[in-house]
């Protein structure tokens, strides 16, 4: 199977990334609209009874939706960086110096996602302390290992970018 061009693995991955990217934008827009509606709609509407979760409605539901929107925004940020890295790959220049910063940013964003996860769990655990008897702290070693892998890859790309600049000045 070819590495680049039509019918290659990269063209399939590009399609998947594009679909994810636009789906995330749509999800983000929907979440922000829903968060706004949750704030603006009167609390005595009948439909609250159908979507009520753990007594959350109005401002509390809006805050929950905004937290989820923040999560989606960070995933969108990561997807956009991956798309840009992918663009350099399809142009035949994967060790572009900008990719080092992109990979580092992805690493920080992944760490940020985990921290958002902890924050949301701590806050919900405190807000709904009567319903959740124990405080949840979802430590995920796999996520932190992924962060480590991305930072290692960033260093690999840094060395690749250095070799690329050397190759450019080799006559």
């Amino acid at each position: 199977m070819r590495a680049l061009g039509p019918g290659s693995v990269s063209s399939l991955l590009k399609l998947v990334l594009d679909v994810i990217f636009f789906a995330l934008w749509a999800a983000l827009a929907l979440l922000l609209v829903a968060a706004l509606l949750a704030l603006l709609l009167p609390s005595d509407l009948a439909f609250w009874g159908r979507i009520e979760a753990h007594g959350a409605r109005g401002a509390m539901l809006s805050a929950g939706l905004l937290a989820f929107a923040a999560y989606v925004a960070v995933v969108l940020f990561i997807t956009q960086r991956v798309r840009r890295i992918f663009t350099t790959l399809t142009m035949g220049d994967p060790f572009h110096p900008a990719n080092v910063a992109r990979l580092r940013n992805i690493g920080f964003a992944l760490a940020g996602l985990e921290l958002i996860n902890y924050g949301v769990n701590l806050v919900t655990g405190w807000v709904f302390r009567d319903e959740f008897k124990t405080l949840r702290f979802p430590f995920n070693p796999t996520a932190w290992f992924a962060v480590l892998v991305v930072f290692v890859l960033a260093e690999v790309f840094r060395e690749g970018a250095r070799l690329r600049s050397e190759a450019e000045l080799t006559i």
Partner: protein
Amino acid sequence: MAVRILLDRVLVERRMSLAELADRVGLTIANLTILKSGRARAIRVSTIDSLCRELDCQPGDLLAFEPGPSDDA
């Protein structure tokens, strides 16, 4: 860098233009300009071979070492 490229001097001696040399050795004028201006980080042995062949000179005619501070320091 302490190593200087003497391509300019050899070209004048041979009354050859950079464009003509580029055409003969199969390098771009841009790459030869990088070499001539001393901005190159490395030179392939095959490049030296082509240059010496077309300019009818020895590698020592193209390179000179002038002691001084290293760029890597």
